[in-house]
């Protein structure tokens, strides 16, 4: 196996020598479960030497809501709202993943209009989720203003979702067999208006935050995660692409007609430090928003008339068997391992939360960071605890 040299804070690492008669005591610091920058109820026990973090041990499970157990009790359709609550910032994508897993096992075909609608909503929700990640990352770094700007734009996406699905956070819009309802009048026009408005805003975020000197100094060369480390710890999504590996399920194993769209996979290039540092992970999200805008534009162009649902019984019965299906969530690959015994509810549903795997790399990256870098790291990994704990 290859040895990976971690290079957090090169100028702070004590190279070799400190006086032997100076003894310092290490401090155990309990970060969370109630802490502003743990993005939920994550608890990280830090072993610190002054401001230097020697060891970080995450403890999760504070938001465990037994989603997998519930899935064994309720019917497939009834479980769709529960998927909303996994990664509550990207509920559309979760709906999509679950619907696709059920459709794969049941052999259900989806009409083309529904497929394009799914792509549109998934990508819009990806933009919304990345906006949240970008804004709250600014907040983690002490810049409050980008958060509000990002929320301003996310509000518009929420309005679009609300007019289509009736909900602003937990949509349950993408259901088994298609999407729940067709678009309201004028929705496509409003969506185009949003895209035209939103695209130049990305430049504003870059000018305000991404290229800010302080921000770059805070995030560049911090929490460097090389590509093989990311892959080894199951990191996916921006955490993997930020490390320089162009791996995206939308390209690798296209679903929902993603192969019909023209888009690129942005990767971290180490512009402000080593490849795979916090800045790269952050900036990949910004670039992905640009790509998502591209995809949504193309999907809006291709949107054909037709039904948005296939006929699926109210209580879905799947044949006995199993399937593992993954989709590319904003935070990485969301997987559903669905086992059916022929009944009306899942025999076993294992959910692979991307944040769960992305977070597992934290104990490797955290040593030799400063206390302030922990929030930089956590923010750049961009976890959603609803999905980590499920």
């Amino acid at each position: 196996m290859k040895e990976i040299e971690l290079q957090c804070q090169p100028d702070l690492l004590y190279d070799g020598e400190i006086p032997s008669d100076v003894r310092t005591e290490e401090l155990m610091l309990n970060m969370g479960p109630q802490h502003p920058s743990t993005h939920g109820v994550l608890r990280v026990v830090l072993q610190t030497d002054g401001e230097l973090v020697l060891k970080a041990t995450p403890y999760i499970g504070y938001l465990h809501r037994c989603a997998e157990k519930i899935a064994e009790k309720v019917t497939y359709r009834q479980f769709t709202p529960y998927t909303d609550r996994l990664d509550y910032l990207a509920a559309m994508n979760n709906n999509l993943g679950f619907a696709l897993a059920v459709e794969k096992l049941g052999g259900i075909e989806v009409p083309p209009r529904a497929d394009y609608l799914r792509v549109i909503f998934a990508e819009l929700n990806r933009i919304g989720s990345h906006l949240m990640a970008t804004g709250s990352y600014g907040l983690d770094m002490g810049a409050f203003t980008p958060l509000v700007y990002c929320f301003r734009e996310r509000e518009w996406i929420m309005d679009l979702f609300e007019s289509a699905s009736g909900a602003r956070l937990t949509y349950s819009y993408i259901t088994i067999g298609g999407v729940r309802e067709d678009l309201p009048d004028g929705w496509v026009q409003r969506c185009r208006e949003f895209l035209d408005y939103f695209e130049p805003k990305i430049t504003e975020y870059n000018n305000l935050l991404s290229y800010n000197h302080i921000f770059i100094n805070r995030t560049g060369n911090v929490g460097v995660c090389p590509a093989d480390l990311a892959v080894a710890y199951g990191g996916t999504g921006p955490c993997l692409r930020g490390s320089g590996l162009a791996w995206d399920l939308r390209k690798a194993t296209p679903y929902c007609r993603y192969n019909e769209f023209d888009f690129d996979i942005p990767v971290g290039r180490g512009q402000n430090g080593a490849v795979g540092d916090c800045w790269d992970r952050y900036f990949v999200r910004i670039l992905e928003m640009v790509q998502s805008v591209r995809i949504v534009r193309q999907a809006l162009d291709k949107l054909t008339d037709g039904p948005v649902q296939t006929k699926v019984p109210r209580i879905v019965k799947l044949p006995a068997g199993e399937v593992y299906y993954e989709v590319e969530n904003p935070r990485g690959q969301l997987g559903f391992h669905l086992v059916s015994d022929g009944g009306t509810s899942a025999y076993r549903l294992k959910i692979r939360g991307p944040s769960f795997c992305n977070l597992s790399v934290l104990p490797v990256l955290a040593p030799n960071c400063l206390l302030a870098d922990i929030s930089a790291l956590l923010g750049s990994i961009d976890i959603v605890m609803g999905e980590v704990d499920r």
Partner: protein
Amino acid sequence: MYTYERPKVEYKGLSLTIVRLATKWGAIGIPLLLRFAWGVFFAAVVAVVAFVWIVGRFINPLLPWFIRDVVVVVGLLAFVCIVAIIGIWGERKVSGRIQSRLGPMRTGHWHGWAQSLADGLKFVQKEDLIPRDADQPLFRLAPYVALVPAFCAYLALPFGVGWVFRSADVSLLFVLAMLAIEVLGVIMAGWASNSKWSLYGAMREGCQLVSYEIPMGLSLLAAVVATGSVNLIELGEVQSGGWFSWLIFQNPFLFLAFFTYYIASLASCKRSPFDLPEGESELVAGFHTEYSGFRFVMFFFAEYVAMFAVSALATIIFLGGWHSPIGGPSSPLWFVLKSTFLVWVQMWVRWTLPRIRIDQVMHACVKYLLPFTLLLFLGSSLWQLYDNPAHPAFKTFAHLLHYGLGCVGLLLLGLYFTGMGYGYYNRNRLVGQMARKHLPGA
């Protein structure tokens, strides 16, 4: 069923007494106050202004010093409170506008002017929580140690000639000394809270303040060398006669010293990007994590009072103090205006920049700011040495540079106002579609 039995606690303390009195009287008083809020506010402003003016003009020569002192101190206290209250409200409005929000709009009907008052009232009613394992006496003392020195700085701060509580020869040093004591309160709070986050906040505060005091003092010393006085009134008086005679345009070293002072003063007020002691995304709330109610308000007050104090110092020393920039009559109004502008810039910076990391804070000070200010100090001294009739060539050069710098300053100010005008003209485009609908006058 699991039932939680709340431990019986005897509530006591000054805050509770205040609350009891306030709830008793407030039931009648507050609705009345709110109904006549406009009138009360203007009456208060008029009363304070008239009061201070009368005291400064007439009572001063007539009454014994002691009464004058009491009166002036009460006036100063009122001023400081108004500074803090308006500062907090202003911060929220400024941040709102920067973030394409509105900020407080409801309380007091006109742009939420009474928001800080309402918040203060709420804070007074809060239970005065002291953690069981905290060091009780120090925990109680800390907010006072933070607030009182910040107020004491105003005792030597002249608002104009004759507009000062005590005009000492060493008033500049006195103000600096008082601002330096404030850190003790913060450290005390951090340690007494017996919380690790607070301790981290206190540690950072200690590191940061002790380091940044040096470049801050050195930048001011560069100006002191140019005028030969540490008396704030004398420092202000040499800058009369229009903005060309401001010390900031005196020589290039002072021009730079203004900016180094301003950066260092941001650090000494714990303002962003140097707000590490309370950086909420890292240290929860830093040194005041465990504080609630009125004690928390005192820390808040101390911050805004100190903000105005450092800005006032910059105004007096670099920006001509109470003198009008266009050569008209000098007045304390100019002083307050300029200081407010600098406070506003502090807010502007805060809502724009991310926070620096602690090692970068120390590097910036020790590796860059400190040597740089030492050079400025040296340069300013040398300039003073050569800027005299014995060196006519240098004198001409100095004059040319002096006016050149003035033009640079004018250009900067012009750019600022142009930007402001541009922003105002394009406000609809800049604030974005969503916010536009909700802006007043839309």
